[in-house]
């Protein structure tokens, strides 16, 4: 009996010893529903730091929050001038790049996280992209990975937002992550890192579920699972809509 209780006590205190400062997280929404009028979404990420001991005197507490969309291989192609016109010539398969990636920090990035910690936890945008299998005869494979970042930053899919996490009294933190309208479906992994002096002292992870719903869901599933029925349905709807619109117009004109 006593032994059992002792074991239970040990188990209960273990996580607390591993991280003296723990994250208690809240999200304004843990699901994003892509409806037919979906026009982007703002997600409020907020939370508190739970600690048993007083606030350490060391470096101030900083917070890094990342939201990362589903990762997929991306084929990157580069154009070159051939026979007077611009043609895709080289291509590199970037093994895995998130479809969406946002990093929000409470101070300039290089102050909240050291390079070694960035390498370990893969926080910054270049770290989130994995590219190993470059073709042997392409020397500047790094340019292709940078192109992914540049193009997706221009589309608002990748962003580094420094100084956008508000931290109160080293305990409460909050930020708002803007998600654009051109999202794809999947589990968006949300990581929160607490750092002191550039080193991660605690972390927490959760998922934001981005899903098409209603009509969008129905049409997308149908087009993938029953392509023949979907194709026939598209034709029927289109013919009916075309015929209906012209019939309606004729009626209007003949009045």
């Amino acid at each position, binding site marked *: 009996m006593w032994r059992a209780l002792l074991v239970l006590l040990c188990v209960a205190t273990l996580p607390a010893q591993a991280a003296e400062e723990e994250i208690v997280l809240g999200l304004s929404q843990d699901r994003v529903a*892509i*409806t*037919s*009028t*979906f*026009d*982007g979404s703002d997600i409020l990420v907020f939370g508190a730091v739970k600690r048993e001991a007083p606030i350490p005197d060391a470096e101030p507490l900083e917070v890094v929050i990342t939201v990362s969309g589903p990762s*997929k*291989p*991306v*084929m*990157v*192609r*580069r*154009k*070159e*001038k051939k026979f*007077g*016109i*611009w*043609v*895709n010539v080289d*291509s590199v*398969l970037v093994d895995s790049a998130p479809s969406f990636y946002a990093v929000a920090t409470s101070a300039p990035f290089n102050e909240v996280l050291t390079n070694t910690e960035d390498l370990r936890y893969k926080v910054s945008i270049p770290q989130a992209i994995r590219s190993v299998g470059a073709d042997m005869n392409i020397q500047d494979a790094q*340019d*292709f990975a940078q*192109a*992914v970042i*540049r*193009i*997706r930053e221009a589309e608002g899919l990748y962003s580094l937002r420094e100084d956008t996490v508000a931290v109160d009294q080293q305990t409460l933190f909050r930020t708002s992550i803007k998600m654009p*309208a*051109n999202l*794809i479906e999947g589990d968006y992994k949300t990581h929160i890192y607490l750092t002191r002096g550039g080193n991660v002292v605690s972390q927490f992870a959760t998922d934001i579920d981005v899903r*098409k719903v209603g*009509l*969008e869901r129905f*049409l*997308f599933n149908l*087009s*993938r699972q029953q*392509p*023949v029925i*979907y*194709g*026939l*349905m*598209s*034709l029927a*709807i*289109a*013919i009916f*809509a*075309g*015929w209906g*619109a*012209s019939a309606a*117009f004729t009626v209007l*004109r003949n009045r």
Partner: protein
Amino acid sequence: MQIYLPIAEVSVNAFLLLGLGGLVGVLSGMFGVGGGFLMTPLLFFIGIPPAVAVATEANQIVASSFSGVLAHFRRRTVDFKMGGVLLVGGLTGAALGVVVFNYLKGLGQVDLLVKLCYVVFLGVVGGLMFIESLNAIRKSRSAGGAAPAKRRQRGWVHALPLKMRFRTSGLYISAIPPLIVGVFVGILSAIMGVGGGFIMVPAMIYILGMPTKVVVGTSLFQIIFVTAFTTMLHATTNYTVDVVLAVLLLVGGVIGAQIGTQIGTKLKAEQLRVLLAMMVLAVCGKLALDLLLQPAELFSLGTDGGH
């Protein structure tokens, strides 16, 4: 009002799409062309992925041709036999076109192919039409009357075997030229996302020698089936038909076409053709510049690699 397109996976303004459909509809009503050759490049410009634009446009053309062909059924200006022969060629061509399309999509050259096709065909058709209609205007000014009707060409087309009688068109010619025209238009339909009327109508008049009054109805009849087949092929192999996009374009397009027909009756045929030719050349010029000038971003992303 933003609307999220389920297959294209982009969010666009619904009124922009209705407006685009309407604009192209007005033009197609004015000039009696399908408008696919204008709509597809415009969809590229507003950021719809090219593969989705091509497949969806095929779906839209089915519907707009269907409402067009009903009027021709009533007037009995559809040559079903000729349409059938063109159709056999067209279906073969469409199947070939989708195979080529998918092969080049794997190589990452599909955008180039589509754009090159557009530049070449819009350039040739626009240029020819421009010269021809300028000549017509000049003639009508100098002679003050209609140009004399030319004798139809009766050359190699009539020397081929496999002759068939086409009663509605009043023709007795080999089935081979219509088949070839059909195959060619089918390939274009699959690759460019167009009905191909702008190629088929001149080919039917100048190569096959069909009377003008049955040409439009017969080409619409053939286009319905070829584009329906193309739509099915794209829907089952590429999953790129976006029905929401198609319906929005269509509703705008049908209303626009009615307005365009009204405007068209108030303008002279030669003036209309010069305007159409200039518009075709403008779209061609824009696409050609994209190929010739150094793009701001040399890199492009595709997701089709790897699987």
